[in-house]
């Protein structure tokens, strides 16, 4: 199961990186997000999986697809100037980063002991547990997050209005 969802996630992300058409890239990203939601179910966290599907594939991606179709620029524009050096440098940089991270995880003894001590499946996360943690310990953060969402909404309206 794990390897299936991991492959869906990574192949979706890879498709997004390589796809020429922006709409197809957006749909590949939907696949990646569904894969991540599946991984969350395997992590005994159905609440996070539901939120992932509702917020990311339901809200953010629909927003992205709306903007893609509104802008009417489905293909990547022709490059003004070739940037071969920057491109190769970025490829080398990213693969070195990924390789280093993978090596670090495999060699770390702390990760190994944590994986061994927590191998038993915990109780699944419920909305009740989340609600207690959220409203008992993080009430201020919750309110600030609401304010931040309001500010972002007003900012988005102000930025897209033609003459304010």
């Amino acid at each position, binding site marked *: 199961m*794990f*390897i299936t969802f*991991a492959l869906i996630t*990574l192949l979706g*992300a890879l498709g*997004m*990186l390589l796809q020429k058409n*922006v709409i197809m890239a*957006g749909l590949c*990203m939907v696949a*990646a997000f569904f894969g*991540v939601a599946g*991984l*969350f179910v395997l*992590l005994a966290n159905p*609440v*996070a999986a539901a*939120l*992932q599907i509702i*917020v*990311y594939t339901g809200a*953010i991606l629909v927003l*992205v697809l709306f*903007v893609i179709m509104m*802008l009417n*620029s489905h293909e*990547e*524009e022709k*490059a*003004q*100037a070739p*940037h071969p050096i920057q*491109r190769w440098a*970025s*490829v080398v940089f*990213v*693969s070195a*980063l*990924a390789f280093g991270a*993978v090596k670090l995880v*495999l060699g770390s003894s702390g990760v*190994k002991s*944590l*994986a061994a*001590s*927590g191998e038993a499946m915990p109780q*699944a*996360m419920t909305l009740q*547990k*989340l609600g207690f*943690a*959220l409203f008992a*310990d*993080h009430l201020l*953060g919750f309110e600030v997050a609401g304010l*931040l969402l309001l500010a*972002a*909404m007003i900012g*988005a309206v102000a930025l*897209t209005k033609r003459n304010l």
Partner: protein
Amino acid sequence: MTGIDAILQGGLQGYLMVAFLLFALGLATVLLRRTLLLQFMGVELMLNAANVALLAFARFRGGDAQAMVFYLFIIAVAACEAAVGLALVIGLYRHRDTTDSDRAASLKQ
């Protein structure tokens, strides 16, 4: 479970590996593609990679509820970022008639 077996069977190392590779793919998208919308999607992918690592650690620490709270805040910030970022892309398209980040290299009109 150790080594390659832990990765394939879904041990902590496997989830961390998926998170790292997802982050690398998102970073590569931001660096290699020139369309602003795709670069934006790469940023979302990197945020998701962080979420996968966070919830994987939470599960192996016995289903910690604090991680879920952090996940909620990350999602809230990602939603704000999506709204404002897409508004900026639309604003750029109105002024320059392009969504190519290379063509938006100067602050002058």
